[in-house]
């Protein structure tokens, strides 16, 4: 089991810059790096894998320094398994050979059949990459990384090219597998739902800097920046101290309240009027105007609401 630590890492190269990045991926845990396009997610992966060298700061695997402005261990010396969005399968090799490509010696090669069985790709062994689906390709890609006995897995948008129908299944399988194998994993994604579901720790990036990091529940329910909050879905950003006091009983200057934390009461609470209802299938999002013309969004399962109706807002 392996710890990965980035300490105040910076890298400056044209537009692909990151600044003062610090986080630790605990042994056997999954860390998700989340951010919009161009936020520096892939640059961090390249820094960890050794394809880029930090301008400042240090990268350590367990207690061994692998990257700094003075030291940059080659990728092959870091025991890292890479899994890419486009799978990077070798088109001239069949599935079996692709998985074996990762295996370094006879012992690890001997484990290939069991790895393939666990990832449910043993029947694809003789097929070539162009003969299998995107989801199957990604399973092969992961199997190859496992076969290489890599201590750390780096996954760059591993599910984004998979059809949404199969994505959830693949995600579940992979997470179960990674946890079972106790592999330290870094997943780069722009999909907030994916990050919340998979990760033990989330790092939110914006323009090359860390906006916030922490456990998924903290990132979702206690965002500290508007950008970080918005990445994970709709949020009510309230800066009216009186309204905050009335709603939550806190004296804070600003709060980020998720719509599902607000409740529509029959009588108690702040009076408001519904101005819009968006139907979202298993719930509806009601836009409610309260005092001083402030608009709050409320997630609700009620079906008896109508535009113009007066309601009372409270916190769950």
């Amino acid at each position, binding site marked *: 089991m392996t710890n990965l630590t980035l300490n105040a890492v910076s890298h400056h190269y044209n537009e692909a810059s990151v600044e003062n990045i610090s986080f630790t991926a605990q042994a056997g845990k999954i860390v998700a790096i989340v951010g919009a396009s161009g936020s520096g997610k892939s640059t961090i992966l390249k820094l960890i894998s050794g394809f880029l060298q930090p301008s400042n700061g240090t990268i350590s695997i367990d207690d061994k320094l692998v990257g700094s402005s003075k030291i940059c261990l080659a990728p*092959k010396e870091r025991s*890292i*398994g890479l899994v890419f969005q486009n799978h*990077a399968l070798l088109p*001239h090799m069949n599935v079996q050979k692709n998985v074996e490509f990762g295996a*370094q010696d006879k012992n690890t090669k001997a484990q290939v059949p069991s790895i393939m069985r666990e990832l449910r790709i043993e029947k694809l062994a003789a097929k070539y990459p162009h003969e299998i689906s995107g989801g199957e390709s990604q399973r092969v890609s992961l199997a190859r990384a496992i076969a290489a006995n*890599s201590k750390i897995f780096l996954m760059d948008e591993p599910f984004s090219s998979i059809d949404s129908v199969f994505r959830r299944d693949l995600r579940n399988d992979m997470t179960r597998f990674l946890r079972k194998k106790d592999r330290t994993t870094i997943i780069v994604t722009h999909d907030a739902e994916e990050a919340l579901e998979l990760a033990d720790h989330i790092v939110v990036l914006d323009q090359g800097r860390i906006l916030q990091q922490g456990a998924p529940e903290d990132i979702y329910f206690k965002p500290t920046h508007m950008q970080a909050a918005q990445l994970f879905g709709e949020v009510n950003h309230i800066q009216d101290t009186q309204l905050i006091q009335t709603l939550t009983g806190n004296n804070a200057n600003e709060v980020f309240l998720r719509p599902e934390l607000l409740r529509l009461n029959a009588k108690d609470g702040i009076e408001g009027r519904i101005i819009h209802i968006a139907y979202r299938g298993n719930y509806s999002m009601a836009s409610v105007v309260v005092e001083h013309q402030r608009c709050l969004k409320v997630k609700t399962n009620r079906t008896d609401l109508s535009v113009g109706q007066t309601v009372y807002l409270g916190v769950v």
Partner: protein
Amino acid sequence: MWPFSVAASENWEHIKSTVLASYILGSISVMVLVAFLSGSIGAITAWCIARYNFPLRGVLSWMLILPFAMPSYILAMSYGHLLEFAGPVQSAIRDLFEIGKGDYVFPQIRSSYGAAFILSLATFPYVYLLSRSAFEAQSNEWSQLASVFGRDTWLNTLKMSFGAARPFMAIGISLAIIEAAADIGVTQLFGVQTLATGLYRQWYFGDDPLVAARLASILILIAGFLLVIERASRKRAQFNSNIVDKIPRQDMRGIRAWLMCFLITLPVLLGFFIPLFWTIRMAIFNTRHLRIERVWDAAIDSIYVSAIGAGIVVLAAIIMSSAERNEKGIRYHIVASLGYAVPGLVIALGLLIFQRLLLEGMGWRLVMTGSIFGMLIAYLVRFFSPAYQTIHSGFARISPEMDMMASGFGKSKWAIWRQIHMPLLRTPVFYALLLVAIDIFKELPATLILRPFDIKTLAIVVFEFAGDDRPAEAAPYALILIAIALIAVYLLAKLNKEPDDKFNS
């Protein structure tokens, strides 16, 4: 421009006062006419093939590259014989209309116009291939947008399509111009005075490296000027390879369809089948001249030189492309690729001057001409660019993530090259080998000047016989040359048509 920085010799003064103006004028007129003619033939045929359905369209679409298998000096030899006063065409006209010499006007094939016509037939496939790709890469959204705005007239569509394809036509035309600038086969056989034939005569009769260097400089200057124009015109050109909605071909019907079929067949007939049939006829009716063992020797020499030359050129392209892949930022190829713009004749004479002025002074005699070493250097300079472009685009199809993945697994650069790059580059390498081999196979000037005495390729034999006005004796050699070139062109077309999608990463 060092040749102009030293004092002029008496020879140079003589050339300057007598033939220099006609050399320059001859070169410019041939180049301009070739640009116009091969550009027109290539672009029109490409437009028809890309935009219309008509009888034999499928067959003609690949037949239009057949002239690649027909060296220009064989075309010149055929048409020189077919269209001369005593040739079958003029004889038939005289017999048919019962007229005699001086009673009719017939264009003189042995002229700069004739040379330009022949060179255009040999080079229009460059323009055709590039223009066709450009036309086929155009999106249907353009024409839909034009029709929404009520601008979908025939003329507007034509202007829009040709405007967008123009940079790619320019690349094809510039390749045709370079071939025309370097040509000695056609111009020498037709007695047209150009800088290239002047250079050839300097090498053949003269003994003044300064004169050769000065003529070569002027030739490079003119070709370079035309190349700069071409580069400027395609500066921002880009193929859009992700076109989803391609412009559908229109069905031509009735007489218009057959007219179009005839129009497209014409350059194929003129550029390939007519000279081929003439060559076959000459070879069949003159078997008494045939010395099988000599034809065999020349064919072996041609294959030997082409195979070794193509191997070395492609090896250099692989090494340079691999270096660029591994070390980002390396751009050696930019300098190396310039060679394609330099006529083979100039490269050959440059190497001879280098031998004479430097190597012989160091006691190394016949380094360039004593073996095929000089030829191989000339081929390397001349044909590196197409080989490099092919290998480089092959590398571009291998995603960088594959290298990163393999490095992460502890594979060395050599292992990545051996296990990933080379297997995936098999098709591009084979394509590049064919491309360069066919060029060397037909190549004349550099081979002619730098060859050692024991090497006599098919191209040289054909040129020598044709130069002595012995086309019947040249025909069997020409036929073998065409047949082998045709196989290579067929394989190229097949590879081009069926890219290895399975390995498309």
